[in-house]
């Protein structure tokens, strides 16, 4: 069981007897995305960070093209990590696509998750009849092209340095330069899974109390999408942040912490 913790480069900090707060990064980078946010919870909570299969310091063997061909595979990973940590009453904080991964995990094991926090979520990125996701199918193909041209800079020599280094701290200096770099094949597949998924039908079934954090001017998940998510879920509330962009965890960590903390402490909303 401990294997899965190594495979996903799981790091546990904070109070061992505290309520577990699990931070999940989205498509693009790795657990470093929470670097400015997670430490704020260490005094009070048991803080769990991990790398999604195929990302950051996760063991290349953790990625299975068949299982990770849908977000359900990623949700299984989340549940397995929680089980291995014997974590119950978990607060799951997911950024971007990991918001939906959290929703699927909560549907799979509702008793294990006490609260969900969705940072910049979107249940579907591509426009549909009566729904504005913000992108067309052509846009998503362009993204995949963009990934291809940017991974020309990827060389196979980098792979062993980036991947399979569960002992990251000593290498942190060297690795910050490459924390957003992933095996191009895997990045492409993760992008495809992320940006072609449709989880709108899952949202009404999630009974877990949920906080939706929405930034102004988010180029990936516009405000209307954040509202859609909060309205589609039976126990969700929306908090609009002043921060702009898609990554308030990086661009406005204090505001992000201030919105999350009261909600996971006692369900209060600040916004």
């Amino acid at each position, binding site marked *: 069981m401990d294997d899965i913790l190594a495979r996903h480069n799981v790091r546990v900090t904070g109070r061992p007897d505290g309520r577990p707060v699990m931070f999940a990064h989205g498509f693009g*980078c790795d657990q470093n995305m929470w670097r400015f946010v997670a430490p704020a919870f260490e005094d009070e909570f048991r803080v769990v960070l991990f790398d999604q299969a195929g990302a950051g310091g996760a063991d290349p063997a953790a990625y299975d093209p068949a299982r990770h061909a849908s977000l359900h595979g990623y949700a299984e990973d989340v549940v397995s990590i929680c089980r291995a940590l014997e974590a119950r009453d978990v607060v799951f904080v997911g950024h971007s696509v990991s918001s939906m991964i959290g929703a699927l995990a909560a549907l799979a094991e509702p008793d294990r998750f006490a609260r969900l926090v969705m940072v910049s979520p979107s249940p579907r990125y591509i426009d549909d009849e009566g729904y504005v996701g913000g992108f067309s199918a*052509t*846009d998503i193909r362009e993204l995949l092209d963009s990934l291809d*041209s940017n991974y020309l800079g990827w060389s196979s020599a980098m792979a062993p340095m980036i991947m399979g280094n569960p002992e990251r701290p000593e290498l942190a200096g060297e690795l910050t330069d490459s924390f957003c770099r992933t095996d191009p094949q895997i990045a492409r597949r993760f992008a495809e899974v992320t940006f072609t998924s449709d989880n709108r039908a899952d949202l009404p079934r999630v009974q877990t109390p949920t906080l939706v954090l929405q930034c102004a001017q988010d180029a990936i998940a516009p405000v209307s999408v954040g509202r859609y998510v909060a309205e589609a879920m039976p126990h969700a509330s929306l908090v609009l942040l002043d921060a702009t962009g898609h990554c308030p965890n*990086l661009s406005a960590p204090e505001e992000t912490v201030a919105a999350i903390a009261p909600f996971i402490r006692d369900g209060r909303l600040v916004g």
Partner: protein
Amino acid sequence: MNPQAASDAFYAALLDDDPEQLYERAPCGYLSTTPDGMVVKTNATFVDLTGYPREDLVGRRTFASLLTAGGRIYHETHYAPMLRMQGTVREVAFEIVRADGTRLPVLINAALEWDADGSPRVVRVAVFDATHRREYERELLRAKQRAEQSESRAQALARTLQSTLIPPSPPLVPGLDVSAAYRPAGDGREVGGDFYDIFQISAGHWVVALGDVCGKGVDAAVVTALVRHTIRALSVQQEQPSAVLRDLNDVLLAQGGDRFCTVVLVRLRRDGDAWSATMASGGHPLPLHVPAGCTVRPVGATGTLVGVLSQLRVQDSVLRLDPGDLLVMYTDGVTEGRRAAEFFGEERLHRSVVDHRDARLPADGILGDVLDFQQGSARDDIAVVAVRVPPLPATVHQQVREESPT
């Protein structure tokens, strides 16, 4: 003006170059933006590259809003986090949508500057026109994809070709236990030169051929196919293995090319509970005979390589295989199997043959020993065929004894 004066004037002019002009007319586009991307300053080169009037950019557009939709996602998921985390971003490829709607492929370097209190202050972006480079990179990418496809087709072809040179499984021969094992060299991407064949002439009359065509790959495979089918055709007409090999020699020489081979040919005839084996070797390692309860001994006479000289020196040897006897044919991939500087060699092979003489599939056992010795990876093709006359069941012996007095 003398050369010295000209040089002085040139350097003086350089020093006088207006910093404003250095910025405005730099050979790359410059943008300065707020930490969340709003353009606050730009140079004339960027305006020229993109066709946006300066007043449409400054205070109005974010850097991300100038990109394609796919680029905006990459910007949010990779570029912005990298910039925030490490302060610089190098060689990121984007496409900028120009004022007229056309696209400009660019390479971006960017640096984030912090205030004294550590909060982000300004982002400086250098924009390089990468139109031709991107076209070239796309060609590289397409060539890479084509190469990968062609590689997988070649591998499929090699596997298919190989499967036509080796019987999928040894035939069931009444009164004879036949086992055969084959392992191509390395990862099996290339067609090897080893082959074997086991076929019937008539009831109780079979031929085993095993050989090694020099070289590898498609050229060798063509010769291997020719050798295998020629042996089949000739064996129907010619009784003596030596005669078959002589005719095969003529066929190979007539065909031209410089491929030769080694072949061992064994003709097996059933004779009650025993078999009679007539064999000839054209430059091939001799078959190993293991009579029941005895040691291993090579049988026959090694002739000359097939397909080199017009006169082939080969001779037939006749051997009786009694119940319990084993006859093993193999290619040199067995004895030349290597671990560091050490060969598997004949002594190990003889031991391996004895170890597996009573196994259900002796050929597989011998191949396993050679692979174990080489720690799993075969440097050369390995082919082994073993034929065994089934021992008489103990009950039959008893019956014979009981019956003999009468």
